[in-house]
């Protein structure tokens, strides 16, 4: 356990990256996923096809490949994120959000958005038929039906699947570690390389932090679900 305690600041820094990746990609994927879900249930066939195509392609591609695309392939066609360079100074060292971080975040966002879209679509399917019919009967256009009647209820119904998607996202942030962001996975590999005899306590410590993070999301989702539940 000593090796973990000794490097507590470095570990905290690593998890700061993990949480930052999670927060940015989480917000981004929720927005993009909602747009995609809107496209997929909307009246314009072209947009429906585009949305369905995006989801099918991205959902069946491994996240590693998606991030490798933004990390190694996209720069070859000058799709670079070099303009991003934010440094957040902390007591234990700087958190540097550079082009590698940006590429990984974009990859995580695009990947997770496909799953957010599917979770929302399952929520939209759970809204009783009469709701949309009533909204149309009072003369609402598609945008109004979605914004005022269907989506608020769909969001409620999709909180559990959405929480599952976000839980998967926080675990997936480790993939960014495999591609160059100095987050939890990289730190754990580093610590095991420093002291291989302490691999069990190191693993337990990192796993425990992830379990706690996952439980926090799960707990928040439960609270949210109970609070916004209608009847």
């Amino acid at each position, binding site marked *: 356990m000593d090796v973990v305690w000794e490097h507590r600041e470095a570990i905290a820094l690593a998890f700061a990256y993990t949480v930052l990746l999670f927060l940015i990609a989480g917000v981004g994927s929720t927005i993009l996923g909602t747009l995609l879900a809107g496209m997929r249930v909307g009246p314009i066939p072209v947009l429906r096809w585009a949305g369905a195509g995006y989801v099918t392609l991205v959902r069946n591609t491994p996240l590693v*490949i998606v991030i*490798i695309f933004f990390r190694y392939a996209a720069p070859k066609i000058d799709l670079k994120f070099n303009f991003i360079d934010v440094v957040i100074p902390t007591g234990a060292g700087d958190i540097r959000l550079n082009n590698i971080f940006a590429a990984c975040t974009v990859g995580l966002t695009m990947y997770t958005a496909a799953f957010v879209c599917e979770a929302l679509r399952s929520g939209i399917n759970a809204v009783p038929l009469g709701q949309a019919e009533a909204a149309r009967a009072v003369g609402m256009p598609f945008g109004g039906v979605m914004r005022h009647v269907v989506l608020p209820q769909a969001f409620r119904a999709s909180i559990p699947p959405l929480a599952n998607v976000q839980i998967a996202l926080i675990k997936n942030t480790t993939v960014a570690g495999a591609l160059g962001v100095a987050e939890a996975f990289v730190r754990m590999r580093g610590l095991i390389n420093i002291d291989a005899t302490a691999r069990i306590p190191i693993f337990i410590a990192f796993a425990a932090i992830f379990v706690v993070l996952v439980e926090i999301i799960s707990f928040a*989702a439960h609270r949210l679900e109970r609070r916004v539940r209608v009847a």
Partner: protein
Amino acid sequence: MSGSVLFDAPGPRSVVRHRLYTVITSVVLLGALGYAVVRLEQNGQFEYEKWEPFVSPVYIETILVDGVLETVKMAFSAILLAVGFGVLFGIGKLSDHGLVRWPCWAVVEFWRAVPVLLSMIFIGAYLDLSQLSHRYWAVVIALMLYNGAVLAEIFRAGVNAVPHGQVEAAYAVGMRKTQVMLAIQLPQAVKIMLPALISQCVVALKDTALGYAVLAPGLTFVARLIYNNPDFGQNQLPTVFVIAMIYIVLNLILTAIATWVQKKFVGEKKVLEVAMVGEGDPTAAAPK
């Protein structure tokens, strides 16, 4: 609720408006596509050199044998082991005895919450990662633990989805607990959980790409060999494109099988729902 319930059958003015939207979005999408193609062309991504490995037989063989075959092997070894793991802990979670149920619950929750990459590196610490076969097994074991934990949950949900009258009838004819599980609940649960099991194969197949982190064999390994080869002039983009397409096709095939199995064995009933991580209530897990 189908999509069409969300909007009225369009009237003449809406039809015109929708046509306009269709034209605008088509133009925007085609424009984006065209721009991408121009961008690719300008950066010389269509040069023969960059696509050479994907049309030369030697490399196609490498991709198929060292890439696809290894990846599929890895995914299926992981799923086969995970089924064993899942059945063991799934039954454990359904046990009447708290002493069995709680540890099984803890194991399942733990491996579901821990990222696969962390377990992969942890298991890798016990193996000699300089050997290819050890890297292979690091991936397989890590995937077994994660997918096994998910399958335990699927398995439990499947057993609970068997109509309760079946169990009561079995007890009524004098069967014991083990017999009820093995002869009555399990066979029916397998049928219910088969589509979910195949969907999990898709997850496992995709997660084999995580082997990238430990240089495990498979498609990502071959991809790295190809785009690091200077003969092909930095062809990351074509490589990623081809590898992604292979994964997509493999997964679509698996998904099609899952849909077919769902129709054939389960009917139009809803796909099995599995509780999320942290919905831990093992007291509710015991059969009533």
